[in-house]
């Protein structure tokens, strides 16, 4: 049995109030609850504020190069599938310079727990807009506002045929721990988007859900098999209308609890899951938190191992010396 302390190392150097502090504490706790030994765990990050995280882990790990964490984690997991691999990136690391690796890790469905700490800004380079900054966002590199649309991480994950997507707010420890445990339990690539505040360069970016009160008003915790209700007294619900979703006030609007959609995270078709994941962009919908999609599918690393076993059983050569004998050989005496 391990405690959170067993996964802790060093003194984090993030700015006071940075969302990364909250997330790190939740990760330590989640790992202790999961119970995989620190020596069987690898934490691999790229470059950026959040990518400093492995240095505060008493596990194996690497704080690598910008954008490549998913690719490096891929090699690590495929070469040594016994390891539990956590891959940690920020929005710049994971979705800008590392976007290609992000989508392909999802497509291949490698058993990686992929953490995306999203503060919608480049912090380490002191405040440039990131691929998740909203259109018109004013930053040091966009003094007149950006003229481009952001990525929405869930959309990218789903577009890459991702099978697991969950979201939590960094300050919400129980919510974060829940999705981390679910990501570990999910076999295959699991993306956890952590909404995280940068106090220096993008303060307040997730204000609507950063406090408990805010979440009560502006977020919906989705749970598989449970009706999609929210509000301080669960007085609101989501219903399907036409091709879209609609927020209704139960009873008042003439709807009963039976009319409210029941969340299905295991549904192969991701249409409604995507609608849930994209809610809350100032559109009158709550922001969805929790495990939005969690669908079983064959993992790349298992398939690689299975194929090796299958070919081993089929082919008569298993050593280098035996391999040589499979060629056309002649003898010179």
């Amino acid at each position, binding site marked *: 049995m391990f405690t959170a302390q067993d996964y802790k190392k*060093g003194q984090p150097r993030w700015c006071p109030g940075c969302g990364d502090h909250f997330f790190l504490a939740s990760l330590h706790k989640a790992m202790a609850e999961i119970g995989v*030994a*620190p*020596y*069987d*765990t*690898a*934490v*691999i990050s790229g*470059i950026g504020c959040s990518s400093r995280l*492995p*240095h505060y*882990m*008493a*596990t*194996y*790990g*690497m*704080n*690598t*190069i910008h954008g*490549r964490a998913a*690719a*490096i*984690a*891929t*090699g*690590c*997991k*495929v*070469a*040594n599938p*016994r*390891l539990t691999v956590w891959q940690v990136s920020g929005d710049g690391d994971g979705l800008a310079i590392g976007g*290609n*690796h992000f*989508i*392909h890790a999802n497509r291949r469905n490698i058993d990686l727990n992929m953490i995306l700490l999203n503060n919608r800004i480049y912090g380490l380079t002191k405040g440039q807009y990131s691929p998740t900054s909203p259109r018109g966002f004013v930053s040091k590199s966009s003094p007149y506002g950006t003229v481009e649309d952001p990525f929405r991480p869930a959309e990218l994950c789903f577009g890459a045929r991702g099978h697991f997507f969950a979201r939590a707010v960094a300050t919400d420890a129980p919510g974060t721990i829940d999705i981390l445990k679910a990501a570990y339990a999910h076999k295959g690539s699991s993306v956890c988007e952590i909404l995280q505040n940068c106090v220096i360069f993008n303060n307040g970016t997730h204000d609507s859900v950063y406090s408990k009160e805010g979440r009560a008003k502006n977020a919906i915790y989705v749970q598989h098999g449970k009706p999609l209700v929210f509000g301080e007294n669960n007085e609101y619900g989501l219903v399907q209308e036409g091709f879209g979703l609609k927020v209704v006030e139960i009873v008042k609007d003439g709807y009963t609890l039976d009319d409210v959609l029941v969340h299905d995270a295991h549904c192969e078709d991701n249409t409604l899951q995507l609608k849930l994941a994209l809610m809350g962009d100032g559109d009158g919908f709550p922001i969805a938190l929790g495990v939005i999609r969690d669908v079983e599918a064959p993992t790349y690393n298992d398939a*690689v191992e299975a*194929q*090796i076993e*299958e*070919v*081993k059983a*089929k*082919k008569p*050569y*298993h*050593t*280098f*010396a035996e*391999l*040589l004998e499979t*060629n*056309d*050989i*002649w*003898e*010179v*005496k």
Partner: protein
Amino acid sequence: MADTLEVKELDQVVVRFSGDSGDGMQLAGNIFSTISATVGNSISTFPDYPADIRAPQGSLTGVSGFQVHIGADQVFTPGDQCDVLVAMNAAALKTQYRFAKPGAAIIIDTDSFGPKDLEKAQFKTEDYLGEMGIDPDRVIACPLTTMVKDCLAESGMDVKSILKCRNMFALGLVCWLFSRDLDIAFNFLREKFAKKPEVAEANIRVIQAGYDYGHNTHSSVANVYRIETTHKVPGRYMDITGNKATAYGFIAAAEKAGLKLYLGSYPITPATDVLHELSKHKSLGVTTVQCEDEIAGCASAVGASFAGALGVTSTSGPGICLKSEAMNLAVIMELPLVVLDVQRGGPATGLPTKSEQTDLLQVLFGRNGESPMPVMAAISPTDCFDAAYEASKMALEHMTPVVLLTDAFVANGSGAFRLPNLEDYPAIRPPYVPEELKGSWTPYMRAENGTRYWAIPGREGFEHILGGLEKDDKTGAISTNPENHDLMTRKRAQKIANIPVPDLEVLGDKDDAELLIVGFGGTYGHLRAAMEEMRQKGHKVAMAQFRYINPLPKNTAEVMRRYPKVVVAEQNMGQLAAWLRMKVDGFVPYQYNEVKGQPFQTSELVASFSKLVNS
């Protein structure tokens, strides 16, 4: 009349098969070299194929060639010019005739020399032989397509499948020229098409028809050659290409080290065959991942090494540019990694299918920061095996990325490979962290030779974090301390400098040469052939071919200074010369530089070196 035919005894002969890229010239050439190797001839082959995926049929750009050099004695190169040229169409004759020796026999398919074919090949008249100045007496002009169609008329095959057998007719004809035993070819085809016996039989019938045609019409050819075997090293042999030998070297090294072999790669000409070959051998536990890009190929191999595998990534020039960053990560994290660079013509996309040695300075220096990295270069197709084995051993034992350079010529060429016995190869012993250091170990503690210890995830008590940021020598924590960075930089450099490599070997007139020929990697065969030819002419010449480029052999400076004249010959604008001038004080060699994308021509080397000796 076959009985009265004079068989010309040559000690070596070069055959070039050429045709449309879809004509199967490579297969015909491969079978011919296999047959020749089987009777004990030395062989060296060189495919010369177009960059276009499939250029228009019959066009000049769509011609591909496959050259086979067979000899009774050792052959070092695929030969400069051919004794027999097979040209399956007008475009092939037009583009490939320049590779034929004066007096070479030329086999053409007259069915592919119609008005349209001639127009596509940009002939001006119907007298194509006259236009090119070819003596018709040297030409075996045969309605090859018609005969193949007739031969398979009863087979029930469709026309397209029948036409695919044209290459076998040409092969049969060549086999007749060299008195080759067709049974070997038949067996080869029966094995290759084991699942399609009807295809095998059709091909066999066509080979026989080609052979018989040669037999029946021999009066039209002046010379018939036969190769006799005189030189043999006893042992069991197989034919192997450089790329396959490289793949085998990695497999052998991983097995010897008791580690999983992981290849992260992205398809790129001319390195892709290494990925193909390793992908086949899952029964040996080889893991290959075809990555999303070159970057991921290298990065994932670094991840695999961290996790305790032999991480390898394979590529060619443009890919090296993309891998540089992750290679550097392996430098600072001090993890084993082998980076295979099968060099091709550059810059940028350059000449993807052609051979050059233009990546040397890139792999030595093409990274940010002080980034020392061992570099090796394989000297022949069969040497690729040993070179890959040694590069892996070096990476694993010294905890460093190692670059292995080959090139398109070495990678695609082939030679007779004496089957190695792994027991004869040196053990591979990575510096695993000793158990007794548990509790006191930090990631940058070093063994006596300066190598960092390797702690593989899964071992309790050795949890640690590596990374791209500079680390403290003692604690392994991130450090920006100026003294520490200076110290770590020196330690990384010293670690590479400490790697023992064998002395540079001097061949030829090592005691009294007037001229030392120096090269590296894949030019070995041509430089050696040039040296032998000059010595036969009475010159005193020696040569030294570098396999180890960083660190250089300890006797490098001594050898470079030993001879009155030194010429560094390379397929670039002087990259090895520049490296040697940097490393050997006051050394100013002559240079022979050529960047044509083609292998050296021995005759040109001899002409140039002779001038140097006589000057």
